[in-house]
């Protein structure tokens, strides 16, 4: 092809509404190798970082996406004539629990929050931030919750394991599971995947 790989990828990133990853790009550019595409993505990111323009290429939700820098938010919000929608404090706290402890049952979320979270789960689900990842093989077959790709996009996270302090929380969780009383224990390994992929 006549056009440089970097510019082709740049054009795709510039028109896509979603973050793109090397595999997706590869599926549209049959003649190229995954390694070359990864290389080009890295080069583009470096270029935009050093150009210091009003937008840059960010690694988010297991892909790359052009995003404006935060200092331009006030002007953009003015153009869109909107103020950003915020999650309530309760919703943010519930979301944090799900993000850090997924896959997680509702009853476990409620144990941590000390209150019923039905209404909040519904809100988070409607906003596309959480999803049902399966059912636990327990009496009542309770639903298991986790975060979505949209969550990664909204919160500027590369992938769930790169959330700050994820390792710390995971280590603490495994400590608790060893000491916690039987009734509070939830072995989440034996859940069934739903069709959501």
């Amino acid at each position, binding site marked *: 092809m006549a056009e440089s790989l970097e510019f082709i990828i740049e054009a795709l990133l510039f028109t896509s509404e979603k973050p793109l990853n090397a595999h997706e790009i590869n599926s549209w550019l049959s003649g190229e190798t995954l390694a070359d595409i990864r290389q080009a993505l890295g080069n583009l990111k470096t270029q935009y970082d050093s150009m210091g323009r009003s937008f840059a290429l960010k690694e988010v939700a297991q892909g790359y996406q052009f995003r404006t820098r935060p200092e331009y938010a006030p002007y953009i919000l003015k153009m869109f004539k909107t103020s950003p929608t915020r999650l309530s404090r309760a919703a943010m706290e519930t979301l*944090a629990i799900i993000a850090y402890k997924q896959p997680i049952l509702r009853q476990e979320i409620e144990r941590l929050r000390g209150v019923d979270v039905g209404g909040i789960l519904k809100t988070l689900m409607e906003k596309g931030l959480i999803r049902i990842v399966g059912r636990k093989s327990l009496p009542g077959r309770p639903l298991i919750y986790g975060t979505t790709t949209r969550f990664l996009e909204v919160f*500027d996270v590369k992938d769930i394991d790169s959330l700050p302090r994820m390792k710390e929380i995971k280590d603490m969780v495994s400590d608790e599971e060893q000491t916690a009383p039987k009734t509070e224990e939830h072995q989440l390994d034996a859940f069934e995947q739903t069709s959501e992929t």
Partner: protein
Amino acid sequence: MDYEVKLEIFEGPLDLLLHLIHKNEVDIFDIPIATITDQYLEYIDMMKALNIEVAGDFLIMASTLIHIKSKMLLPDLTGQDDGEDPRIEITRPLLEYMRFKELAGELEERELLDRDVFVRHLPSYLQSQMEDWEPRLDVNLFQLMDAFKRIIDEGLPGVQLTLQPERWSVTEKTEVIIDLLKEAGPTFFQRLFSEDRSLSEVVVTFLAVLELVHLGLVKVSQPTHESDIHLVLSIDENGEKLDG
């Protein structure tokens, strides 16, 4: 007391407890259980006095606090005391609760999409071109079921919804076949079934064809032995006698 102002902001017992601990400026690892319990109960009374329905979660915590308080006051005479501070029962969940509050705060401070950072959307000059394309649909059965459940849940008054798919009647199906033959002209038998979605619909379609042949409205032919059966309408444009 400044409860009036702050009354509604406690969304649960842990939230209230945490507030009391901060207000009294006490160490979470050394909670003065008597003071905190008294203030907690005062708050519950306040809610009741104001006719606010007290959620069960608040009452469960109240009884936990009272239990801990009594354990702290009375020496253990049963000999079952394992030496653990009874306050661990509230300290542990409080610490966990605080940890996730902190994590929530950190999440909130990230560069949030559509608040701090913005992405491109399909530009206007491409939108018009998009109309001709047929993208892959990103839907799943769960979404369809969820949509259907919403409709049932929000069911409009007087609307009866049953899940049993409505059955085709032979009369309805004959009309559909006539319409099809009018629009498409002579048609292969097989095509009539191409969109049938259940065995019952296939049966009804078949019965409808028999009915139409019987009434002389449709002629059936088979050009060769191997070929599919061919159907031709044998009435003219004005022969809509079935529509009455």
